[in-house]
């Protein structure tokens, strides 16, 4: 513990400071527009991204008596959540104006949520984990209900708050149990405790603590059977926040599960890997089957997000393979990245097509889209195909890596269930495609023809990345290897 104490959390501080600045701008500069707040937000997120990359050293650095750490793992999480935050802000600019909730507080809350996620990534103590979860969650509760004029939004916020508080209780209780069993909340010291005392110390007390932690995190990432809030909340929240929750919140949640399970409890892997396997199977199946009959695209994507959490858990279970743990975690990270770009892309198209306060959510609204807006239809088709996991898209590559990792761990049944689920999901991802391309548009549709450069850029970036992560063409031309190899190269140094 040497050098500048704040260096490991400098990016976090930039984001928090920007959040305060946006609030102050609003309080003192009465004429400051929401757009200016958005611009400051975007700039600060980009700055934080740059800072996290450039201030990052190769060696792990911890600070605040081992409460936070800056290592390759935290860097990946930081980049991922900042990327998700940036895209969310780009989606929000015009969307907020259109539905009449363009306020500076929105951006400041996004910034605080991002800072919470970043703390989750760099937490090296269970207390920091809880702190991060709460900073993130409380901001998100408010953001979900930000569209106060809309019933569903308020209802969603309330549900999320109640159930979230419930889950936080489990989480905190779990941390207390772990402390009781091991005498410490520091992740490295928990691992050390089991290493020195041996597996005999895996007591029922510890197991209860582990179970409660998994429950708490399972709620945050929307894993079944703790997923009931997901459809209602995702559907009620403003669309750009839904996109943010499905990607950023989920990524941070998965990151912290990996961090705690892999770094604190590697000795008890035999116990928790079967549990994760079970959760993965249930989550994939519940998400996909429920999505089949949805007629609302946003709600369908909510269920699909549950299913994707299941695929991610498949990759997490795959850490069981001896000596290839970092490959499995890399597959998880790659999947999160792929899911972030393709999912935000799909939500961006929804926002693009919405008019006034009409959210454009019903699948029937997409009738004949290919005739009316051929490019929008094309990009939505691309994102949906990627979500369905069809080559040569990012979604396919992600599933490929995750299932390969599970095969390496010997989980054949898990992979078979995963692939069957994948096949099932093709049904509901392809249905909007059929409606877009094979039916005629209703005559009385008025197009939203505003110019929305930020949104267009976001769609372009996500579309390019969807293809690039799937094929690696640009990386190949630049002489680089695959992104997956890059990630696993990073992780090999900390795991």
């Amino acid at each position, binding site marked *: 513990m040497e050098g500048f104490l704040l260096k490991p959390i400098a990016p976090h501080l930039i984001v928090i400071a920007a959040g305060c600045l946006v609030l102050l701008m609003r309080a003192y500069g009465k004429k400051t527009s929401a757009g200016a707040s958005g611009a400051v937000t975007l700039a600060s997120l980009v700055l934080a991204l740059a800072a996290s990359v450039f201030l990052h050293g190769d060696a792990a650095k911890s600070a605040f008596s081992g409460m936070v750490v800056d290592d390759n793992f935290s860097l990946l999480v930081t980049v991922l959540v900042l990327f998700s935050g940036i895209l969310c802000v780009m989606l929000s600019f015009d969307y907020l104006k259109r539905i009449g909730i363009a306020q500076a507080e929105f951006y400041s809350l996004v910034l605080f949520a991002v800072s919470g996620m970043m703390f989750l990534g760099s937490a090296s103590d269970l207390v920091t984990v809880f702190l991060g979860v709460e900073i993130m969650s409380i901001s998100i509760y408010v953001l979900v209900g930000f569209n106060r004029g809309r019933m569903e939004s308020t209802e969603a916020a*309330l*549900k999320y708050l*109640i*159930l979230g508080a*419930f*889950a936080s209780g*489990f989480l905190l209780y779990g941390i207390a149990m772990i402390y009781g069993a091991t005498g410490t909340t520091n992740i490295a010291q928990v691992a050390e405790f089991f290493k020195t005392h041996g597996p005999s110390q895996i007591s*029922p007390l510890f*197991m*209860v603590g*582990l*179970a*409660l932690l*998994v*429950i708490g995190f*399972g*709620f945050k990432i929307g894993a*079944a*059977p*703790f997923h*009931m*809030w997901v*459809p*209602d909340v995702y559907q009620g929240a403003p669309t750009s926040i839904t996109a943010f929750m499905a990607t950023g919140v989920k990524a941070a949640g998965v990151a912290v599960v990996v961090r705690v399970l892999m770094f604190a409890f590697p000795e008890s892997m035999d*116990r*928790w890997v*079967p*549990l994760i396997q*079970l959760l993965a199977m249930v989550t994939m199946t*519940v998400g996909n*089957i*429920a*999505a*089949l*009959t949805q007629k609302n695209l946003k709600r369908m994507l909510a269920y699909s997000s549950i299913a994707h959490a299941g695929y991610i858990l498949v990759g997490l279970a795959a850490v069981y393979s001896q000596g290839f743990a970092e490959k499995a975690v890399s597959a998880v990270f790659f999947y999160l990245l792929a899911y972030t770009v393709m999912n935000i892309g799909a939500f961006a198209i929804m926002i693009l097509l919405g008019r006034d306060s009409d959210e454009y959510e019903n699948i029937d609204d997409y009738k004949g889209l290919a005739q009316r807006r051929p490019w929008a239809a094309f990009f939505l088709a691309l994102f949906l195909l990627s979500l369905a996991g069809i080559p040569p898209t990012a979604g396919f590559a992600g599933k490929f890596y995750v299932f390969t990792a599970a095969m390496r761990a010997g989980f054949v049944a898990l992979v078979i269930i995963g692939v069957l689920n994948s096949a*099932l999901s093709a*049904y509901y991802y392809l249905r909007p495609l059929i409606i877009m391309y094979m039916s005629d548009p209703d005559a009385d549709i008025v197009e939203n023809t505003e110019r929305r450069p930020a949104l267009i850029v976001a769609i372009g970036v996500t579309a390019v990345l969807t293809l690039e992560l799937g094929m690696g063409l640009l990386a190949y031309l630049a002489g680089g290897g695959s992104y997956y190899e890059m990630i696993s190269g990073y992780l090999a140094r900390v795991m």
Partner: protein
Amino acid sequence: MHSTSLIALIPLFPLLGVLVNGVSVWRRKELPRKTVGRIAAGSVFLSALTATYLFVRLAQLPDDGKFHQVVFSWIVAGRDADLFSIPFAFTFDRLSAVMALTVCWVGFLIHVYSIGYMAEDPSVGRYFTYLNLFMFAMLLLVLGSNLIVLFIGWEGVGLCSYLLIGFWFEDNEKASAGKKAFIVNRIGDFGFLLGMFFLTWGMAQVGGMSLEYDKLQEAILKLKEMAVTLPGFGTFPLLEIVGVCMFIGATGKSAQIPLYIWLPDAMAGPTPVSALIHAATMVTAGVYMVARMGFLYSLAPFASTVVALVGGLTALFAATIGIAQNDIKKVLAYSTVSQLGYMFMGVGVGAYSAGIFHLVTHAFFKACLFLGSGAVIMACHHEQDIRRMGALWTGRWSEKKMKWTGLTFILATLCIAGLPPFSGFVSKDEILWMAFSTPNSVYPTVHKFIWGLGVAGAFCTAFYMTRLTVLTFGGEYRGGEHSHDFHHALPHEKVHEVPKVMWVPLVILMVGFVSLGFLGKSRIFSGDNAFHHWLAPVVDAGSHEKALLEGPAGALLPAAGEAAAAEDPGHGAVAVHEPAEAPAKEEGGEAEHKLEMMLMGLSVAVAALGVLLGYLVYGVRKVRPPMPSEEKSVGPAHKALLNKYWVDEIYQALIVNPIRVASESLLWKIFDVKVVDGTVNGVARTAKEVSAEGLKLQNGIVTSYAFYMVLGVAVVLGYLILG
């Protein structure tokens, strides 16, 4: 530019033609009709020039020289010892040079002719797009350096053939002729694929999975030792299986028994297509394939015997059918089937250069005949029935209706009939002699039988071709009056010679088939067989191993070579394959030479007899083929020929109908609808019902959500603590 990198240009030019014409058709921005034709013909002309240049460069290399170009590495799988790699590569050796030159130049002439023939057709852009695409595929086929590239070309030409047979697809009969060609070819292709699978399997066993010709050739001795056990049939040598399977592919593509039935129907396409695809080039792909794989077939005596026997049977069988056909194009179609039979007879007895030589001469004279028939059809305003023709080339030169068409057609007839000094005589006689003089190691006397089939076929050929020519160009004109058989009539005055753009290619082709004869062996001119010398290093290379392997008494060695090989083992490998020259130069070859001259005399006599008989019957006695109304009363033999031995009907009853009935009643109505659809729909319905029922849990009430969560908590806790 280095010669090697020019090879890819040969198929590239027609592909560019496809792009230009194809895009204009696709975008519905039709170019001027003349431009379309010029682009198409010009692209083939450039290919022909490139091929000629490479040919000249190749001739300057040593005997076994070749150009090799890897365009890109295409299929790469596995690592190290398991590496399976198929490069997209071209080889320009002496064999592919001959093929490329023939394809390009004959193709070019037919493209030029097409400009005239298709001048009135509304879809000329589509026509030339397909035709250029065909050239591209055909050139891939002959230039590819491995079986896979050959197979792309093989399938590509099949596709173009289908597209062009059904070119006038508004006519249902023409569309179904296209489908028939495609399906019959697929049956053959199945055999071809099986052959490639077996070969790949064999190559994997001996190390180095590859389908490159030179790799196969290197490994051929190892492959010879291998055997395949087919459950229920017994164990066979690998090479025999591969040889027979690949020949099944050839019977489809090259219209041999039993898969020849599509070719006569293929005449539904435009006549230049019949000339290019269904006579000169595509249908000879099977012969090229066997010659290309000569190193394999020469070690597979049984497969070679099958090739020769099927070829001989087809040669005679199709020739007899040709006697009774009345459609000018159908006669030529059966004649093509028959001539392809001769080529297979040649390559089947190990005379690869003789088979390829007949392929080349046939390309010229048959293209000339087909284009001539197209000219006649055009001159007679789309009349194809020879019972309605006649007197197109009678009277003095200035009075002749179709001066040039007639002249070239008659000379081509003499050529295909096998009269000296035309090239048809030279190449066919070479095949017959090789068939006679090459003892078969599997069945000791079968080579004499094959030769007999060939001679009988030659007689029929001479007869039906004379019949065709005399009825078309000689006698009196019969298309002028109405009758209850034919309702439309065309006055004789309206028959006219075709435009120059059409007859000039005929004359050039005529020059080709007249002069080509001097390239091949022509002992009566005491010439040297330049063609054989040119090809020997390529097509006989595989036999080198065979000579080493089996010694002078090996299977299928030409009889004449045995003595030479025994005397001089070191030189045997070369001498073996020059059976005709070697004995002539050495002592003891005198008797051989006499026998050969006798047989040659015999085949000339047979041909002359056929021509004479045909002229006597149809020219002097003016026998007329029965009109449709009289066809019922003809004799049984005539009836069998007229109905093509009812082969189509037999196939229909034995194969097509049972399959259709089984697929309709069993596969479709029971298996597909009940089992497959039932299962699929059932699974889908179940999933949807589960989804709808399950979603009732999602009631929107937050307390019940919390309750489910608690249930989940109970499960997780129980699992971790008790489990």
